């Protein structure tokens, strides 16, 4: 079953192309992560899915409804958690939730019970009468999440939900998201730039410069680049790179002071390298590929390389 279907979606802010021809599907009941660096197009995609932006080109359906034509049907069924809290800072947490409930057609005892439940789940019960202004950033985010969950949405959209949360709160948030998926079958879509958060998703889409560069479970993505990952630090990485090409016929990728090689049976290469160039190598590490390695392999540049000029 498909929760979200995105077909050839393109979006531009004036001259700047934010999304170009993005196509993929999100299944019902999965936690889907949209991973990418800042400026990669995550937030634009999030805004299109939450019915805030008009569709410029392409077609998007959410829970079977066309975003361009049936936004009202979609809005009732989705919960949205923004990166910058959409709370009224001059109201208390509870007043914010009452307000939110009213916007979604809830009132009276049903609403009061829902609010009590969400407050308890997110550990906000004792702060419910505090003005949002007086809460810490982490507590504000929790209130924001409670707000997005209030009307029992079938689909939850979260834009960078971990921003401003301490590790404990982050852990609790994910436990809650997993619980939602398992017990209520809620589809969760998270945008993130954190690798450790991406690891927790059922499936991932990698967005870079407005393009979808990879799609799959974290394990599938790692398997695609295969084998092991060697990261070599050297004083003269360019020279060492040439030496490796000459001796082993492998072309390492150069990133600043480090070289990177992806290869099956990496431990054997590691041994050979250290024997061959004991003086040139400062340090070398061997690991299974991380999602960051997947990103590098797919885009040819580093995740945090905002201008994308890191590749030689």
């Amino acid at each position, binding site marked *: 079953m498909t929760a979200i279907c995105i077909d050839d979606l393109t979006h531009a*802010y004036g001259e700047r192309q934010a999304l170009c021809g993005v196509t993929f599907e999100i299944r019902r009941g999965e936690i889907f992560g949209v991973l990418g660096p800042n400026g990669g197009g995550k937030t634009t995609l999030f*805004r299109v899915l*939450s*019915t*805030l*932006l*008009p569709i410029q080109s392409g077609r998007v359906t959410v829970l079977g409804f066309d975003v361009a034509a049936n*936004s*009202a049907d979609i*809005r*009732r069924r*989705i919960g*949205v958690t*923004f990166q*910058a*809290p*959409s*709370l*009224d*800072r*001059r*109201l208390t947490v509870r*007043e914010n939730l*009452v*307000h*939110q409930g*009213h*916007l*979604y*057609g809830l*009132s009276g005892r049903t609403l009061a019970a829902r609010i009590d439940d969400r407050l308890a789940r997110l550990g906000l019960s004792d702060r419910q009468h505090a003005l949002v202004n007086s809460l810490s950033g982490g507590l504000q985010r929790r209130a924001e999440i409670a*707000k997005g969950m209030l009307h029992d949405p079938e689909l939850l959209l979260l834009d960078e939900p971990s921003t401003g949360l301490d590790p404990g709160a982050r852990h609790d948030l994910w436990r809650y998201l997993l619980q939602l998926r398992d017990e209520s079958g809620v589809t969760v879509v998270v945008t993130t730039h954190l690798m450790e958060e991406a690891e927790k998703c059922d499936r991932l889409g990698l967005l870079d410069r407005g393009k979808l560069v990879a799609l799959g479970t974290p394990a599938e993505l790692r398997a695609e680049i295969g084998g092991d990952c060697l990261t070599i630090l050297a004083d003269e990485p360019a020279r060492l790179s040439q030496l490796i090409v000459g001796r082993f016929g492998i072309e390492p990728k150069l990133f600043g002071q480090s070289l990177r090689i992806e290869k099956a049976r990496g431990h054997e290469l590691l041994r050979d390298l250290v024997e061959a160039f004991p003086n040139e190598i400062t340090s070398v590490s061997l690991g299974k590929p991380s999602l960051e390695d997947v990103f590098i392999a797919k885009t040819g540049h580093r995740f945090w390389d905002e201008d994308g000029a890191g590749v030689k």
Partner: protein
Amino acid sequence: MTSGTSDKSTHESAAFFWLPIWTLTLRELLRFFRQRTRVVGALGQPLIFWVLFGAGLRGSFQAPEWAPAEMTYQEYFFPGVTVMIVLFAAIFSTISIIEDRREGFLQGVLVAPVPRLALVLGKLTGGTLLALIQAALFLVIGPLLQFVGLAPSLGWQLSAGGWLAMIGFLTLVAFALTALGYSMAWSLDSTQGFHALMSVFLMPMWLLSGSFFPVPESGWLSWVMRLNPLTYGVAGLRRLMSPLLADAPVSASLPSLMSCLGATCVFCLVTVTLAGWLTHRRSVINVR
């Protein structure tokens, strides 16, 4: 569709229309009363204006033809100050749209299943109620100043019906001005921009409505006045407030009550439609 489901959907759409209006209105009121300085400023400033200008311009004021010769400037200015209170209240409650947008609150409302018209009406009802509360306070406190020598006796003898008519008309003016402020604030991304529009557009509109000084009956200024929708708001209020002016002859600066009512209704309809239309568009401004 069976009647059962249509009942249910009517019930549901009521919940999705009236409840949001109610909650958005309530929010405006809550926010206002939590900001004490706003309460003080909203009432203090017009009172001070009324007393100071009244004292300062008493000597140079010449009552317009339609007014009784003994009318003082403060009496003349009274409906004008009331409209100013309503105008400022409308401005301050709609300027919050810009803050709501910047703080992210508005996005939360825009992704909710709220008909755009309900969002507009909620905001406008809240702003109008605040304007009326402030105006009502002035209407009570203003005349009391005569007992401390800061104001002349206004000679009010309004019946209950007269009061109702006046408050009703003031509501219409407040609704129109709030919708005007809303339409201006909707497309702006900074409160500074709003202040600029306020000084070059809203303040002159108020100054040239006959609130502050009698506009000459001929010349280009009189045409600005005739075309200014607020002129009809001020004049209508003037006629409804003072029994002496209720039957005064019709002139450019004091149109008949029916023309005042008609023009203000049109003004209200145009601004509310504009506010609704602007809000209805799904555009990049939603995410600024």
